[in-house]
């Protein structure tokens, strides 16, 4: 078991592929440069399962209050998500008050973004049968059951392995980053 994925730790699990018509390697290089330049990057995402104010922020804050980090753990896959290459111009922590995104940061074609640092390639695996959904309406549900639905990302708490008759659902992790305050934000193109 790794130092990131161990019982009691909090992870934001995400399947990733091509985004906004840009190759993943290009995205990683661009995001690392942003972190080098100003200390953090914005990792764009969409969908309703990791809404910034009601899901990611309370999840991350609950761990930060205990002095524990939240890691973004990513599984590379072949799925394609094509969105327009429109750069977000402003971001908001609460959906009401908006600020300009620093010029050094380019986050494209997304409704939301995670605030990350220490983005790196990291070979690991996560057993979704040893996780529980940490926040939101599905709080407490077995991670494998949740992801098995249509969710491609989830705020999870790593637990001890469940005693089930189902085979373990180990998923490769290829890329990790650490979430930083304010953890997740809304994006606007205008």
């Amino acid at each position: 078991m790794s130092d990131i994925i161990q019982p009691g730790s909090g992870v934001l699990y995400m399947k990733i592929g091509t985004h906004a018509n840009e190759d993943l390697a290009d995205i990683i290089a661009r995001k690392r440069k942003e972190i080098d330049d100003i200390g953090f990057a914005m990792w764009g995402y969409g969908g309703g399962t990791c809404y910034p104010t009601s899901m990611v922020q309370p999840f991350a804050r609950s761990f930060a209050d205990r002095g524990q980090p939240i890691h973004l753990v990513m599984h590379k896959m072949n799925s394609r998500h094509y969105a327009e290459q429109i750069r977000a111009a402003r971001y908001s922590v609460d959906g009401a008050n908006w600020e300009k995104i620093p010029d050094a940061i380019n986050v494209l074609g997304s409704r939301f973004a995670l605030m990350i640092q220490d983005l790196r390639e990291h070979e690991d695996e996560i057993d979704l049968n040893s996780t529980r959904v940490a926040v939101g309406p599905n709080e407490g549900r077995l991670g494998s059951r949740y992801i098995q639905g249509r969710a491609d990302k989830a705020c999870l708490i790593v637990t001890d392995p469940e005693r089930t008759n189902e085979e373990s659902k180990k998923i490769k992790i290829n890329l990790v980053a650490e979430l930083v305050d304010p953890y997740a934000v809304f994006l606007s193109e205008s």
Partner: protein
Amino acid sequence: MGKPRLQIDLHEAMNAVSDVVQNRPRPIRAIDQIYMKSADMVLQSELVAHWADGKKLAFIGDGDAISVCVAYLKNEKIIDYGPSQITVFDFDERQVMAIKSFAERKNIRHLKAELYNARDAFPLTNRFDRFYTNPPWGQSNKGESVHVFMERGIEACGYGGQGMIVIADDEELEWPKRVLHSTQKRAYELGYFVNRMQPLMHSYHLDDDALLRSCNLFIEALPGNKSQGDSRPIENERLTNFYGRDQNLKIRYIKSTRPLTMEGAHEDEWKPDYYEDIR
């Protein structure tokens, strides 16, 4: 005893609900607006229409627009039963305007809507026979959000009549069971009992919708149940975590900033990409 339930023309009913869905504003996730799926709306609307046949029905919040479906199904003579009057109390001005506009366009005279936040004292106590609510599900405040909406419904019915409460239902998770338990306990404290429950009835437009369901919890006042006082604003401590963890009730109203454009996409959502060889 309501009218006998005849087989309805499902094709007509689905098209009617489709009209209503087309009329709805887009949901705001931050305030827990998550819409019920359309097939479930058809069944739920018919059920509500029969349950409240000939009664005055108050909706305490109604993002799904079940109220509109119930009124419209009867107005279009797809069903021949339904409430005599429907009034929706919702804090989202977009919803209120959409309901009023639909009622006017379709000439539905018994459907009304009022801008109202459940935090405030209820304006029309003891005017209704039934109430319906699909409130925030109270996951992070031990069901308190459900209790608040239920209490407003009970006040609307003057501590009499019946209510239908739509709340989370799940065989795996703990919190929906705790909320169901606390809601039934609160109903009991207010002189009501559970007279029926329909488990795992509805699914929703969520990314993880494959798993999440809700049930219909029916409550009824004990005969001769007495009022427990005037309607009052809800105390601040009951508003904590109202919409989920760290999501307190702070917004009084969602105000509309755009005119209703139900017939199509808003102009800032799209742009044309023309053929170059056609002028």
